[in-house]
Structures are given as C-alpha cells and as structure tokens.
C-alpha cells in the first residue's frame, strides 16, 4: 500500500507536484496517466525515495519514505524511465549485482536471478552485455531488476515505451501477473505504472489516476471514469430504405424518419411517437442514395440505447444495417479532465 498525503514538490519556483492525496492498494495495477510533464515521474521518484517531497508525507508499506527511507526502499522494486543500467555489464551479472544491492544473500542470488530471467523472457540473452541489447530487452532487464527481490511494491515508469506491439502485449501480461497474489504477497502487489498513452493504461490497469500539472484530476477504475458523471454515450447508426418502401420527398424523408423515430416530436413523418428516451442529438455523418449514416449522442448517464433505437426504427420502412455503441472513451474522460483544468 502506498499512501500520499498532501504531497507537493517544488523545483525552485516551479511546483511540479502539488497537494497530491492518493492511496494505492495492493492486488491492482494502478496507472498514472498524464501528458508529458504532468508530474508522473516526479511522483514516482518521491515514492521510491529518489526525491524527497517538499511538503506532505508518503508512506510505502507503512514506512515513511523520508524518515524510514531504507525500510521503504526495501519493499520497492523500481523501473525508472528509460530503464537505465550499466551497459558494460552482462545481463546475469547486472541482475546478480542488483540482487546483492537488495540484500539477497549470495547463496540465493543465482536462484533469484534465474527466476527473474525466465519471468522476463531474458534467458536467451543472459550472457549479452546490457548496452548491446535492444530497447525492449533493456526494458525487460530493468523490470527483472525491479522484481528480483520480490518487492511488495512495484513502481514502473513508462514500462512499455520503446517496445513493439508483441512485446507490449507480453509486458502487459507480465505486469498483470505481478499484481496477482502470490508467494510472499498474499494480497497481491502494489503495481504502479505510468504512461501517457490511454490505450496502454486502459488495457493494463485496474485503476487509473489522471494527473495533470502536478495535481490528481481523476481516479478510479476505467469503467468508473468512463461511466462517471459528465460522460455521454455515442452511437453510430446506419440504415437503408426498405427494398419496396417508398418515402416521399426522399431527400429529407429518410433523415426525417430517423430523426422522428429517435428524437420524437419535430421530425415526424408518419407518427407522433415520443422517440427514444435518452437520445439527445442526432447528427448526419453520411448520406447515400437510399442509405443514411448518423451519429447519435445520448444524454449523460443514459443506459445502453441500442435495443431501444433498433426497436424504434423497426417498422418504419428502414432496415438497420449497423448499430455501434462507441466505447468510451477514457480519452474523452482524460481530455475532459485536462481541459477542465485549463
């Protein structure tokens, strides 16, 4: 468990982090999301004890990172941004060195290193020099170094940058794996990673913390964030006119029918039905000879409208050929959070 109370960090006159209040629980992968320069790395460095907060307190596994820095650092495995490592050393040698640094007894070093090597798919490069490895392998070496001593807390700064898609998938799996309860960590690990890529966070994290300009803008599960107040639903709807159906004044007709059926009054052609509850706006995004593509925006907090919309259009002489709910877009949430601040 990592707890941050009112944590601020100033670099001279610049406030990199201000008043951060955060609790990160074990067993979950928590993602720090924010644009470049949001203060993610500063936060992580304060958590790992590389920097001391200017104000506030941070405790890791119950140890204050300033007053009990050593004890706090002992339960952290940290992969810094860009995974720096001694390029002239061999992979296994480097890992053995890191194991020694973390206080792993010499007799157990080999076992620990072997485990980390296989865990991070490094076995085939174990005798290569770190400096000669590709970026992806270096990242894995950094991760292996971070997990070596089985820390209760893993802090990973941008763990997937520089990896190819396949490696990214593997890395995600590994990170999720590490969060799960296991040997020595019955409640699972605290895994905190940072990224400026939404998809990354969305795909990996159980919990997302959005950081911008040194402040926490939002925190929660992706679903919570997406479903949270202020979020709107989006649907893309494509219809075609029935084969034998005719509608007078075709041009406007199809649009009118769809609008009428979905929005109700105002767009009516053949009825005075009230439309579908929750639909806020219908925008035409494409029209053809006998077909129409619209975007439907629902009211904030509305349920899934797909079924209601299909039913409403059914029997109106149009056939629904495509009905897609557009997924949410954490990006939206993120952009909202950022723009709010601005």
């Amino acid at each position, binding site marked *: 468990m990592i707890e941050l109370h009112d944590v601020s960090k100033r*670099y001279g006159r610049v406030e990199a982090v201000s008043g951060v209040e955060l609790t990160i629980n074990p067993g979950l992968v928590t993602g720090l999301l924010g644009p470049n320069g949001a203060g993610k790395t500063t936060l992580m*460095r304060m958590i*790992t*004890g*590389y*920097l*001391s907060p200017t104000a506030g307190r941070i405790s890791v596994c119950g140890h204050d990172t300033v007053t009990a820095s*050593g*004890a706090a*650092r*002992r339960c*952290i495995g*940290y992969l*810094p941004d*860009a995974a*720096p*490592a*001694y*390029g*002239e*050393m061999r992979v296994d*040698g480097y890992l053995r*060195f*890191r194991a*020694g*640094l*973390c*206080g792993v007894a010499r007799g157990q070093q080999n076992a620990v290193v072997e485990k980390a090597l296989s865990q991070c798919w490094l076995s085939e490069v174990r005798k290569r020099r770190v400096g000669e490895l590709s970026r992806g392998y270096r990242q894995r070496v*950094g991760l292996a*170094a971070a997990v070596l001593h089985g820390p209760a807390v893993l802090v990973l700064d941008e763990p997937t940058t520089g990896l190819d898609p396949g490696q990214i998938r593997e890395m995600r799996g590994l990170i999720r794996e590490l969060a799960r309860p296991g040997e020595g960590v019955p409640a699972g690990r605290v895994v905190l990673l940072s990224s400026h890529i939404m998809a990354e966070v969305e795909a990996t994290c159980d919990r997302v913390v959005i950081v911008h300009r040194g402040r926490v803008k939002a925190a929660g599960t992706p679903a919570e964030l997406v479903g949270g107040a202020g979020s709107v639903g989006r649907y893309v709807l494509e219809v075609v006119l029935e084969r034998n159906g005719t509608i007078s004044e075709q041009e406007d007709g199809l649009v009118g029918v769809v609008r009428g059926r979905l929005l109700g009054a105002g767009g009516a052609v053949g009825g005075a039905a009230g439309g579908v509850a929750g639909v806020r706006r219908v925008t035409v995004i494409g029209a053809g000879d006998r077909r129409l593509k619209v975007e439907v925006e629902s009211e904030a907090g509305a349920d899934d409208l797909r079924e209601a919309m299909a039913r409403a259009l059914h029997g109106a002489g149009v056939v629904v050929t495509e009905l897609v709910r557009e997924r949410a877009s954490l990006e939206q949430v993120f952009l909202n959070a950022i723009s709010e601040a601005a």
Partner: protein
Amino acid sequence: MRTLVIARRELGSYFRTALGWVLAALFLLLSGLVFAASSLSPGEPASMREFFTVWWSLLVIVAPAISMRLLAEEQRTGTLEPLLTSPVAEVEVVAGKLLGAAGFLACCLAPTLSYVAVLAWLAGPDLGPIVAGYVGVMLLGTLYLSVGLLFSALTASQTLAFLATMFFLLLSEVGAQRAAAHLPAPLDAAALALSVNLRLGDFARGVVDSQHVVFFLAATAWFGGLTALVLRTRRWA
C-alpha cells in the same frame, strides 16, 4: 556487505571497459619510465624512493582520471536512480565506490611489484621503505580518489570532474605550503599539517607514522562524508 557489492561491481567495471586497461597501461608506462630513469642506474642506491616521490606527483593526474567516472557517469546515464532507490545508504554507496576505485589503483600498482623483484634480483634492497612507500601511495591515492569522488558527485560531466579534481589537488598542495610561509605562528603549523608532501616524506624513508595514517584516513573520510551528503541533499533538490 552492500559496500562490498558496490565495490566489486565498480572494480569490475574498470576492467570491463577498455578505459580501465588503457589507464593501467598508461600509468605503467609512466612509472616504468620513472623507475628506469630514477632508480635503475648503476651505482645508485637500490631504493625506490625517487620512484615513490615521482608517483606522488603523478597521482595528481592519475587519481582524478580514475575517479572522474565514479558518480558523474552514473548521473549522465541515469544509473544513479536505480542505485539510490535500492535499499543502500549513501554512505555505503560512497564507501563502495571509493573501495572499488582504490582497488583499481592497487591493480594499477600491482605490476610495479616487478620493479621490486628486479631490484631484489640486482641488489637486495631494504624492503622496509618500499613497503612503507606502497602504503603511502595507497593512502594518498585513496585520499585523492575521495576528492575526485566528491567532484564526480557534483557534476555529470567526467571532464569537468577530472579537471576540477586536478586543480583542487594542485592548488591545495601548493596553497598549503605557500600559506604556511606567510601565515602567522599558530596558523602556519595548521597549514603545514594540511600539506600531504611533508607527511609523505616519512613513508618514502620507510617510516610509518600513526599520525600520518590517521590523517589520510580521516581526510578521506571527510571527503567521503561530504560526498554522501551531496548525494543525500540531491533528494532535496
């Protein structure tokens, strides 16, 4: 324990890079020339006194060259971050680095034992002053390395660390003696006490004086302590 882990890695890293071997060969070339010129002439006493005297002045260049990369490189490549976030105290980092560098210095010196062998084969010299001379070189070298370590902690540029260390060493030695010549009574003795050259004379002539040993170790500890403090205050930056 962790100190030794760091020291071992540090010592190894000198040999893992070409720089370490080139440095060692270069120093050996210099000391070989010095030895051949100063000690190896027929009729001269079989001693390495001249050799050590020259070596002490060489250390002003040698020590900064060894120490410049210790922390500056870690800062430049970012490896300082994983090092300082691992459960290691700053003092352990400093002690480990220093020990590693001193170990490398010892490795550079080790081949010069062949000079002793040559002397022993030629003339059977008094080994006492030679042993004391090596002790003196190591003590002085470690002190210089600790100075270099401090400057290496203050900058990410190896070149800057090298130059700053060298100038500091030169100035402090010359300065101490100059100051001693001009300062009034109680202060001149203090200034002289800071001059390493006067203390080294004893080692060269085969005398190991506890006060010199304590001086070198204490001064090394002082610079080491300052370095640890610099590392610590970095966290507050």
